[in-house]
């Protein structure tokens, strides 16, 4: 029996099912929609099997082709990669269950194949230990996403898909140029191997590749001012896809920036610069979200704001800051992933994305509205939800060695939380107390769709009320990143 605790399975299983969908699409017809569910259920099992291994050894490494890195590609999962891949598998599973009841448009088999590929690519970005492999995963993810964003084929979807295609391709080119520069400078592609050879490079030799890679990943990670595609693409996509795009894609891109900045580009001069980017992203996202009438657009802008928040926490470059960033990543992935799924069900019933048409839904779709409220509260950071703990952690981390700038940043974060609260409460107020003028027959979403929402909501509630294990785990993960354990562990376990 094959050992399940192998990170490569996290990529290979979904790829296997993707090709199986292509193979069986013509005779299984809409039966192919069950294949992604199986794929991500298996992925969850593999992620769970990885937990004891990662806790015991600190890292799990899988080589390919029977050769040792850096000559062959390897997958390396440490604590940070583990919890992100677990979240990716969970969201992938939940969203593919949701798809069973949500996608009725043709061509279904193409949709499910691309959807599986999208989540596979995101997991791939998270677990790879090779920088060119990271680029390949980035390409898989973005090209699958281009097609999915345009899936509805109306004017808005095509425009959004095209805009994303152009910006995503430019981002990919920048990332590739950065990788070429690193290869030119070090002659190797393995992340750990590069990290060992960059120490004798000059500042300039590190700054140029960093700028290129940061731009490339920043487009995918929706950092201001590179995020013009996101507010169009996320609303235009089918809701299950928006849930993945908002829930994991930005997170995965920021993960890649964190990983590369901390292992390869080990310089302190840039964190202040990153912090300014983060704050601008935060302000831009939250303020724009406040003025939206379209609910999915509002959530998309809120994603930008949240990305800014956890990117800010990362740019503090302290253990506590990173811990806050990771906690906020988890909080955002779960709550935003859930919100998009809830909202998708509501839009199906109401037939509109305008917030005003959601009036009175709180009484008609009780379960959906309840979970929407939970997700919104957690994003705002209301106690006792998990978002409260993560925001608290970020603020404490920022005030740890406070100077005037950091105090000002904390004030901005708090202000933006108020803005966030304002638009979410506005939405909830419309839903629970608004009066519906037109009398439309609105039913609760179907049980299958509710199942997905309830699963994510339950996970969110569990970690809200028992946050200690998650917080401790994140603390260890953050300490490993700051102490550069990734490099030492990889060297010890044969990742090089």
């Amino acid at each position: 029996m094959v050992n399940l605790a192998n990170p490569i399975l996290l990529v290979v299983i979904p790829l296997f099912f993707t090709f199986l969908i292509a193979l069986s699409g013509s005779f299984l017809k809409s039966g192919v929609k069950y294949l992604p569910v199986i794929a991500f259920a298996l992925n969850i099992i593999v992620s769970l099997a990885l937990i004891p291994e990662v806790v015991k050894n600190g890292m799990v490494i899988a080589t390919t082709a029977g050769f040792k890195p850096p000559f062959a590609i390897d997958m390396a999962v440490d604590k940070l990669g583990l919890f992100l891949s677990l979240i990716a598998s969970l969201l992938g599973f939940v969203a593919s269950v949701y798809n069973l009841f949500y996608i009725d448009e043709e061509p279904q088999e193409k949709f499910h194949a691309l959807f599986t590929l999208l989540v596979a690519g995101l997991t791939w970005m998270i677990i790879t230990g090779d920088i060119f492999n990271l680029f390949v995963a980035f390409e898989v993810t973005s090209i699958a996403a281009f097609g999915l964003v345009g899936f509805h084929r109306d004017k808005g979807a095509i425009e959004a898909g095209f805009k994303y295609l152009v910006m995503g391709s430019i981002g990919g080119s920048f990332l590739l140029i950065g990788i070429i520069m690193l290869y030119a400078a070090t002659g190797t592609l393995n992340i750990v191997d590069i990290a060992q050879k960059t120490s004798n490079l000059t500042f300039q030799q590190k700054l140029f590749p960093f700028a290129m890679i940061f731009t490339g990943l920043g487009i995918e990670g929706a950092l201001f001012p590179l995020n013009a595609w996101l507010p169009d693409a996320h609303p235009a996509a089918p809701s299950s896809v928006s849930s993945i795009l908002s829930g994991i894609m930005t997170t995965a891109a920021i993960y890649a920036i964190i990983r590369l900045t901390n292992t390869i580009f080990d310089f302190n001069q840039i964190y202040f610069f990153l912090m300014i980017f983060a704050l601008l992203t935060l302000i831009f996202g939250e303020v724009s979200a406040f003025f939206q009438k379209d609910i999915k657009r509002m959530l998309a802008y809120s994603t930008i704001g949240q990305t800014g928040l956890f990117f800010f926490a990362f740019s503090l470059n302290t253990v506590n800051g990173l811990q806050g960033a990771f906690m906020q990543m988890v909080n955002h992935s779960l709550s935003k992933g859930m919100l998009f799924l809830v909202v998708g069900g509501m839009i199906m019933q109401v037939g509109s994305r305008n917030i005003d048409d959601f009036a009175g839904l709180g009484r008609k779709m009780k379960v959906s509205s309840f979970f929407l409220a939970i997700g919104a509260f957690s994003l705002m950071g209301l106690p006792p939800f998990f978002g409260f703990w993560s925001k608290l952690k970020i603020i404490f981390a920022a005030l740890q060695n406070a100077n005037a700038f950091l105090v000002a940043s904390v004030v901005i974060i708090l202000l933006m939380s108020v803005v966030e609260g304002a638009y979410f409460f506005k939405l909830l107020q419309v839903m629970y107390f608004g009066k519906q003028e037109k009398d439309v027959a609105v039913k609760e979403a179907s049980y299958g769709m509710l199942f997905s929402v309830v699963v994510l909501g339950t996970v969110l509630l569990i970690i809200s009320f028992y946050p200690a294990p998650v917080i401790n785990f994140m603390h260890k993960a953050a300490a490993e990143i700051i102490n550069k354990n990734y490099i030492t562990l990889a060297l010890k376990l044969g990742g090089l």
Partner: protein
Amino acid sequence: MVRKVVYSIFLAIIVLALAMFFAAYPFGKNKMTVGEYYLNHGVAQTGAANIVTSVVLDYRGFDTLGEVSVLFAAAAGVAILFFLAGGTKREQEDLTKPNFVVRVGSRIIFPFILLFGSYIFIHGHLTPGGGFQGGSIIASGFLLLYLSYPGTRTNRDGLSIIEGLAGLTFVVLGLIGLFLPQYSFLYNFLPKGTLNTIVSAGILPIIYIAIGFKVASEFAGIVDDMMCQVICRGGGK
């Protein structure tokens, strides 16, 4: 005007940065730590006479699996965007019929294109070229058919079955490696054979043949989708 100036300034900065960076690495100077290893050990370790193939399919075979998925995603994306809501209902518009020379010429040349493409991907581990190149050549043959006979329709179900089978071959060959004592994805478990013969390099030729079929069917699918935008009528939303 202001925009253009700003753009040019940004472009100049990028170009300058690239020039400054790469000036430090003169062309031809040996910097390839990993590349040197491939050159010295590639043939012995993989049994492929074509060193590029040994890198692309063996040492970095997992990247190639990714590239195969990228192409799959691109083809599926095109199929989604060009999908006709009417399903299989595809009416044809009258296009001017291509002349006699084109029609007969393409018929004569089509089998040779198939043969040439197959040669390229079957010999991928021996000579330059491989699955991607061979597959594209075969797809270009299909493009020629579409141009000379605008009414040509390929069997799309057949194409996606080939596509899926080829992809599965790649993944399953890789997975076998996990059941062996070496415990490594894409481990080359077949005997290496004699260098420079067609049956050599273990699983590499099988993978390249699979990729050849996959690329050919994907490109043919893309051509079919795009041709349909021109000649199909009555579909769309």
